[in-house]
């Protein structure tokens, strides 16, 4: 197993915005991390990249096993040696993810020069090759461009190139397409997943687009209000979601043949860290809530069909169209 997350919690100051997250990921697998804004997706990503100190966060309990080694007790320099080399990060917004006054080529070269010890020329050759694989035309000319001279889709491909440049084993992509046009989104996801599959890398894809998950991922982890709601294989989740929240998320995907106006959202909003409800945090919005939901925290339990769910009254298995 390349990555195993065991009972991960994140603490920032006196609050605990993320707790009890479990999942694992093997080489060649793509895991979708889904949930609404504020559910803890990005925190999980920062924790995986060892970047929590940047926002003043720490990991009070839990283990992050990467290639068998626990990342939680690692020193800053040990983490830095992993970042870029073994674990690479694709940030949310490509518009701000590139240094505006440094040429594209130099920014991508940096990664392979630092981590693979390549010389100036070898690094540039590698960069041009990568950019070409990412279907960037005239890659050698683009290397001399500044970020503002490129489109959003191009920039995101550059950011992906930077992530791939150090030959990592795990890529964490934090909503890599939210800032892009819909037409470009599909293309970027396709390029990213193709490259990941070709190279046998592991990918944690953070998204709130269930459509992307259905199309690109092997496994899904559903987070709600800082806790794990459900963790399943993609087909299983879409076929028979066990957690009412997962079912509601799937219900939010528009489908062919739907009557106009019949698309429903999930009523209510994600609670903020300061006002998490007691018991199951989803119960105020849950259509299935019953006795105990409002005061007993549901344990994560394994499902016979594989995966796990944290719910007192899991759905028996509604067939989804």
């Amino acid at each position, binding site marked *: 197993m390349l990555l195993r997350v065991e009972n991960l919690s994140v603490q920032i100051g006196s609050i605990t915005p993320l707790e009890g997250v479990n999942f694992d990921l093997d080489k060649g697998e793509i895991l979708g991390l889904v949930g609404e804004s504020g559910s803890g997706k990005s925190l999980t990503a920062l924790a995986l*990249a060892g*970047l929590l100190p*940047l926002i003043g966060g720490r990991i009070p309990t839990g283990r992050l096993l990467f290639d068998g080694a626990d990342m939680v007790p690692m020193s800053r320099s040990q983490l*830095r*040696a*992993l*970042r*870029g*080399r073994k674990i*690479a*990060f694709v*940030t*949310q*917004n490509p518009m*701000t*993810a*590139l*240094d*505006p*006054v*440094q*040429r594209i080529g130099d*920014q991508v070269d*940096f*990664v392979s020069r*630092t*981590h693979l010890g390549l010389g100036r020329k070898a690094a540039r050759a590698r960069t041009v090759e990568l950019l070409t694989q990412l279907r960037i035309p*005239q890659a050698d*000319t*683009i290397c*001399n*461009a*500044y970020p*503002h*001279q*490129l*489109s959003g889709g191009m920039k995101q491909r550059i*950011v992906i190139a*930077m*992530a791939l440049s*150090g030959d990592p084993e795990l890529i964490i992509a934090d909503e890599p397409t939210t800032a892009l046009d819909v037409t470009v989104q599909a293309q970027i996801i396709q390029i990213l997943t193709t490259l990941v599959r070709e190279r046998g890398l592991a990918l944690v894809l953070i998204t709130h687009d269930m459509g992307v998950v259905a199309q690109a991922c092997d496994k899904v982890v559903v987070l709600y209000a800082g806790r794990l709601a459900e963790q399943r294989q993609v087909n299983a989740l879409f076929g028979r979601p066990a957690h009412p929240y997962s079912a509601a998320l799937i219900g939010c995907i528009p489908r062919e043949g739907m009557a106009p106006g019949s698309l429903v959202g999930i009523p209510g909003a994600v609670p903020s860290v300061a006002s998490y409800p007691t018991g199951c945090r989803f119960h105020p919005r849950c259509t299935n809530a019953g006795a105990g939901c409002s005061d007993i925290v549901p344990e994560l339990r394994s499902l016979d069909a594989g995966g796990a769910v944290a719910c007192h009254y899991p759905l028996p298995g509604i067939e989804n169209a």
Partner: protein
Amino acid sequence: MKVGTFDTRSGAIARALATPKGVIAGGWLFLVVFVAIFAPYLTPYDYDIQNLPNAFAPPSAAHWLGTDEFGRDLLTRIMYGARTSLSVSSVAIGISVFCGMCLGAAAGFFGGWFDRAVTVAVDLTWSFPEILVALILVAIMGPGVTGTMIAIGVAYLAQFTRLTRAQIMAIKSETFVEASRSLGAGHGYILFRHLLPNALTPVIVAAMLATGDAIILEATLGFFGLGAQPPTPSWGALMSSGTAQLFKAPWIIILPGVAVAVTVFAINLFGDALVRALDVRAGLREA
């Protein structure tokens, strides 16, 4: 999108010179620098040989700008004075920029007690007018060119420390810095390849404008007799010697004053042209 040529920051001066403002200002500055460097070859007179019978001669064919109280050619004195003014002010600002950037970058990047100490020290000097800081320092070190350079350098130090610190603090929380960190960049790379290059543009512009102020400050110190010592001419000292003959020979005080004013104006104008030219994105906005 235009593929093929991409503008660079190193071409900024060339781009600044391509604007009308830049041409006029750059032309004057080039002239002043040229004259300062080649003064001995451009004038038949010496700046320090006295010719008392010829004192207070009004402008004429032999002495274009007249002579001073010792019969020395005023144009020659102004040309040599440009040497003092330019070298003192640019070295002084060089000191301010270098030390200010180092202090400000370290304070902004590392924060903590070092940042607090630097901020307090800087705010303290900031609360005095530059002239006061410079006067105190010259009083301590004694008058002369070296003392003036250091005094002016320290007087403008606070400005660059604050500017750099604020820039670094703002840029350090940008996503691209986090992105770079997430790919394994260390402190050194973040500071020297991301933060400082991004902080540089406003510092260059501020340095340009501060050089103008430094010329005035140097002239002021010279006027008080605290700058370059006689017979070395400086624009401030020339004006100072002109005060005694304000009505008898007004050109002695007016013409060095004009030199100061026009040069400072040209520097500010050029700084203005440079602001636009330094911005790598300016071309895109104009298009």
